[in-house]
């Protein structure tokens, strides 16, 4: 069976956990598929992996779907639990998956300290710019002007650039992609899994239910197409003027790439 094929990655899922609970049009299913393909193509068997996640929609990407050891913990604390497990058993391939609210808001302190320690683990932030599970409130990555359940007049606070945040904190592999860019994302995930340090990938993943509807962003397909135009590869972004980059998201391997 070809590693990374549909039939092959199906073996990495717990059948009894399917179908996933994600809303129609959610990007997290695409991200789950990308993670499974990267793992299937990695040199390590699934028994070596430990998936740690917190609370929120993204916390449900690995737990209970992936047929490996999974640790589904308190809101924002996944990196702390992952640190303990990895220190005790360095054989474990530790993968932390969380949303923007989980990893960057309530877990923000743990994020910068884990990056600073540069302990070997792969951290995937599924950024949908909202708290999906609790009804679409504003998060630290919600764009200025976006309407949410708690910013009905539009968000006035500036969002974090998560990649620059963890880079400044000391992460040694940093990348950003979207669920539109699956091939690039899978390649980046493979490199992150092989990286001998703290590897962080921000993955832009649309939330049609809570963010899209409120901001009239159209259908799930429209939101995916918008990601294509919003994202600018790093090589092209370097040729662009700052005013041309307003509202864009730079994608690529931002730190530690090949």
């Amino acid at each position, binding site marked *: 069976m070809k590693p990374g094929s549909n039939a092959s990655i199906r073996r990495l899922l717990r059948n009894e956990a399917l179908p996933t609970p994600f809303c129609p049009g959610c990007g997290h299913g695409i991200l789950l598929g990308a993670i499974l393909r990267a793992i299937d193509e990695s040199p390590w068997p699934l028994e070596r992996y430990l998936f740690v996640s917190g609370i929120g929609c993204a916390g449900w990407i690995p*737990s*209970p779907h992936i047929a490996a050891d999974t640790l*589904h913990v308190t809101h924002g604390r996944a990196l702390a639990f992952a640190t303990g497990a990895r220190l005790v058993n360095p054989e474990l391939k530790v993968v932390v998956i969380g949303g923007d609210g989980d990893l960057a808001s309530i877990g923000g302190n743990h994020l910068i*300290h884990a990056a600073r320690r540069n302990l070997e683990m792969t951290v995937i932030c599924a950024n949908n710019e909202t708290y999906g599970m609790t009804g679409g409130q504003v998060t630290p990555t919600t764009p200025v002007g976006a309407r949410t359940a708690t910013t009905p007049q539009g968000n006035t606070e500036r969002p974090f650039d998560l990649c620059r945040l963890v880079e400044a904190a000391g992460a040694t592999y940093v990348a950003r992609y979207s669920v539109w860019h699956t091939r690039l994302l899978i390649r980046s995930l493979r490199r992150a899994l092989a990286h001998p340090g703290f590897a962080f990938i921000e993955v832009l993943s649309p939330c049609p239910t809570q963010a899209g509807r409120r901001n009239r962003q159209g259908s799930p397909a429209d939101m995916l197409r918008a990601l294509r135009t919003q994202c600018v590869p790093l090589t092209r972004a370097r040729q662009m003027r700052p005013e041309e980059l307003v509202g864009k998201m730079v994608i690529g391997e931002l730190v530690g790439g090949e």
Partner: protein
Amino acid sequence: MARLGTQRRVANMSATPEIISLSSVLPPGPAFLQGDEACAEGAIAAGCTFYAGYPITPASEIMEHICRRFAELPGRVFIQMEDEIASIGSCIGASWAGALAMTATSGPGFTLMLENLGYALITETPLVIVDVQRAGPSTGQATRPAQGDVMQARFGAHGDYELIALAPWSVQEMYSETIRAFSLAERFRVPVILLADEAVGHLRESLMIEPTVRVYRRRRLGGRPPFGDAEVPPMPAFGQGEKLLVTGSTHDAWGFRRTSSASAQATLVERLVRKVQAHEDEICRTVAYHCEEGPLDVLLIAYGFTARSALRAVAMARGRGRRVGLLRLATLWPFPSREVARHTAGARRVIVAEMNRGQVLREVQRIVPAAEGYQRTDGEIIEPDELLAVIEERERR
């Protein structure tokens, strides 16, 4: 003091395969230590392999001692985390990776740990948390003793559960009760809290190091569900190909989330409560002084550092011809109800002395409604003279 030596497993003298004997790490015989240091040595002797902590007075000496000693011993991991939330979080991750894990703090840090204490309770994670209590609430007085966290330890996390809390009264017990805490945590798959206080933590006195340490060790899973079918299910570990599902959500015996099943919630909570409640006699340790020598005029009940003054006050009162005894509670949770009921039955007056506003008194009053309290919450210890005066004054009424 010799600071070398690795731990070896010695011949198993027990009929129960889960109880093992380890050689002591410190040389056997008398030692002279601070309470916090003895706690750290007790953890080392019990086989603690992971420690995570965050600085806080009056518990920092535990972390500093562990840090120095772990560096000399193979296979032990120390890390200072960014806060107390991360400290207990990493301990839980470490415990599931197969380690015996401990963290230590004081009241303000313990408050931060309550979130993940709840997680450890619902996931049945063996873990030792040391709370060297200081005067509160909030920052309070960092260097002053108190016993104000008794109810925080019992009811601080939300939801319904039972846990274990021990109250050491000496440097000896900071060593030996830390060892017992690890054994109870493994035996019942429950977080165990060592409720010390600043006075015991910073006390220096001699203690005896026994040559061997007997502790309970977790068993392998062997294909059984990690969260059910037994009162205390076997504790598995990550990295063994078990495909473990560990979640803080309500779950079934195999760890699958059951977020809207009334029967899953009822079954889980019932077992979390029963597995501790049903073993009060095995868990609870009390020590009675002068209680078997006929009916008492006054029974003092005390724990932690306060019990030292209480024992001295009892000796002084008996020297004056009064029939006074002491019941020392070395275990606070589960509350030793049967032992309290047995010893208070023959006493005309019961006085609970503690450095808080009556947290254990209220538990005793559930058994003896007429029980009286003597309390001090000014950051000073209760003195023996003071307790003697209380006994005499109340007996004059």
